[in-house]
């Protein structure tokens, strides 16, 4: 399996920022084309907040102007709290300690992860770039965990499990569990420990956007299309969804979207500041630790036929359903226990109120036991990353030929 060198992603984000355009004086600032109260003089601070090294950002001749040189701006006029307010926020420190974040992650970066692009459109001050990195990391870690530990999962179940681990609703629930409170309105005077985003106005229809009402790059509205698995695999995101959020960030976002962006940004910030090991530890303690019963994600239409196809594909004997036990056949509530056998091997067992239901349940159980097979020792690709002794020895994972398509 080809390794994904994600250690370069963060450095690409940092290197893409031009270093030579750092202003020296507030009065020398070019006016931002957008009519918004940006703070481009803090550009260098944002770079510093993302840096994982302690090297000075600039030479002494390029120090920022003294405070007396810059005019005082009322905090209410700022779109988001300044970075200097992060150190004095008790909520932010409490959140940092509550999440057991590494000490290398500064409070300023944590404060930046709480600023949604709808609150501050300045990409140097909001969490858009961090969230992009965090989204890829969460998808990567979850996908490799699911694929390596459950190599026979059907693609739809894989998408559902992916969403159950790191989907939008899950991340919003995680945000609530972390105790992150949301600000009523973003602004510079707001406590940096609050999640800041511009709320969507009441009455706005967000169902269309959530359902994938998106016009593609070719100008075709695919919202009414029935998406096949092939298209979901090619064009979809880590959850198989093609839609992006149809809401404009300037018009506001929902609390769920803002929470999702925050968690992703926090993961990205942890990766940038603390490295992959800390990120994986953080991911395991906050996301993989969540209990998810994968067997509940399956939905079979014709399990008996799927099981027959599967046995035929794998070279097993054709499945045979046998009645194992029954009770109350002539009563109002009979119970039949049926086992599905492939030759002498029992593939599954199910109980139902009728013989047919019990046979279907037994076939579904046999399919689940096949699809939920998990190898005993697994080495995920991210564990093998790293130089020297840091990475484990790579053991190839099992790759299944795929699900049975009826």
């Amino acid at each position: 399996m080809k390794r994904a060198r994600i250690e370069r992603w963060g450095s690409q984000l940092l290197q893409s920022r031009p270093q030579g355009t750092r202003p020296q004086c507030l009065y020398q600032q070019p006016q931002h084309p957008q009519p918004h109260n940006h703070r481009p003089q803090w550009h260098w601070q944002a770079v510093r907040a993302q840096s994982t090294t302690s090297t000075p950002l600039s030479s002494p001749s390029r120090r920022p102007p003294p405070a007396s040189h810059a005019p005082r701006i009322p905090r209410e006029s700022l779109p988001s709290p300044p970075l200097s307010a992060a150190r004095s926020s008790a909520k932010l420190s409490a959140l940092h300690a509550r999440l057991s974040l590494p000490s290398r992650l500064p409070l300023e970066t944590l404060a930046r992860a709480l600023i949604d692009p709808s609150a501050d459109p300045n990409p140097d001050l909001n969490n858009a770039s961090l969230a992009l990195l965090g989204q890829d990391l969460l998808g990567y870690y979850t996908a490799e965990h699911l694929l390596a530990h459950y190599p026979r999962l059907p693609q739809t179940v894989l998408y559902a499990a992916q969403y159950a681990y790191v989907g939008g609703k899950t991340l919003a629930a995680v945000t609530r569990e972390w105790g992150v409170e949301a600000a009523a309105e973003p602004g510079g005077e707001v406590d940096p420990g609050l999640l800041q985003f511009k709320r969507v106005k009441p009455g706005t229809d967000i169902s269309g956007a959530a359902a994938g009402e998106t016009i593609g790059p070719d100008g075709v509205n695919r919202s009414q299309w029935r998406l096949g698995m092939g298209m979901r695999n090619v064009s979809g995101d880590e959850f198989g969804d093609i839609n992006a959020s149809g809401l404009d960030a300037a018009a506001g976002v929902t609390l769920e979207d803002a929470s999702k962006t925050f968690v992703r940004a926090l993961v990205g910030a942890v990766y940038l500041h603390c490295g992959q090991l800390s990120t994986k530890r953080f991911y395991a303690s906050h996301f993989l630790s969540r209990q998810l019963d994968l067997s509940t994600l399956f939905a079979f239409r014709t399990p008996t036929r799927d099981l027959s196809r599967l046995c035929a594909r794998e070279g097993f004997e054709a499945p045979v359903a046998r009645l194992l036990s029954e009770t109350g056949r002539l009563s109002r509530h009979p119970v039949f226990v049926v086992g599905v056998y492939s030759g002498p091997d029992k593939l599954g067992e199910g109980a139902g109120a009728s013989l047919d239901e019990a046979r279907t349940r037994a076939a579904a159980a046999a399919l689940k036991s096949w699809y939920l097979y998990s190898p005993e020792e697994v080495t995920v690709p991210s564990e093998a990353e790293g130089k020297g002794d840091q990475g484990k020895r790579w053991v190839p994972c099992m790759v299944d030929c795929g699900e049975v398509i009826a």
Partner: protein
Amino acid sequence: MRRLPRFQQSIDLLLESTGYPHAPSTICRTCRLRAASQARRAAFSTSAPRNEGSLANRLKNRLFKKKDAPGTGNLAYGVTQPQAPEVEVEDSVPGEEAPREYANQYEPASKWDNLEWVGGKKSKKDRTDTREEIQWFMPRTKATKPNDIAAAVRRALVEVLALQEAGIGFEALRLPTVSIDDLAADVQYQVSGTGQDVRLRYPNDEVKSEILESVVLSVPQAAEVDDAASFLQFQRASAVVHEPAVASRKTLLWKEVPLDPANKFAIIKRVMQLTGIRLADPKIQRCDTAGKLFHELLQRPQPTKLADALKIDNELTSLNNVTFSSRRVGPIDKERQVGRWKVIERELESRGLPVTMS
């Protein structure tokens, strides 16, 4: 009728301590003090001065309706009482000379602006225009470093004890003098067997002369010193070669030097002048050694607010998830912290409603 004795007022104690130098020595001390206190009390009296003479003369004038009334005795005293001498104190008391001089120049203020105003920007500007410098009793900045405070205590000890040994009054100590911190560090303190008499032991004569010259810097000019005897005493003290250390005397550290009531207040006053730290009376009462005085000077004043008191405790200030507010966190502050207050303000202003009741 026998005159009822009057209780002494507190101001009399102050007046009596100053003495009355110009009265003839043939008058007894009680009469001199009474006359001096009666004369000087006028300086603290708010009533207009009356030029009718003594009480006896006023009684005579009231009884006989004319000033050349018969009788020369003092009616204030009985027949059996000795005659109280008439002391001409009014012309010789300096405290009453000034009011008489100013009486002619005094013009009552008819408007508010004509009153003399002390304090404020206008008064400061007037004093700046007239180049009248205010002599502060203490520096306006307080010393905070323990080394500076310790140096000030040592310096005050050396200065006051040097003046005491020279027999010069403590009034010679002025605020702007030459610093003798280096010299004071070399001086040793020796106490007698009783533990009360503390004397300085200088390493050599030059140190002693330098210390004395710096302490009474104004004495050699003799312009600001009233008593010429102080100058003579200073010259005599400077000329005396320091005595060799007596074996019976015990050398003390500067923190062990006892503060004798004779010079305790002079030392503390000098320390206040040097450090700018004012000591309350109960603290002064507790200071019986220079070390305790130093300890009291190091004590920071009690905070006036709970937030300041909590900030002193390092246990709470070291916690990042704890913040202190110097005032009550009200509903507006809470709304501002979550960003809702600006929305409330905007909506209230758009409806023409007052934002707050004030």
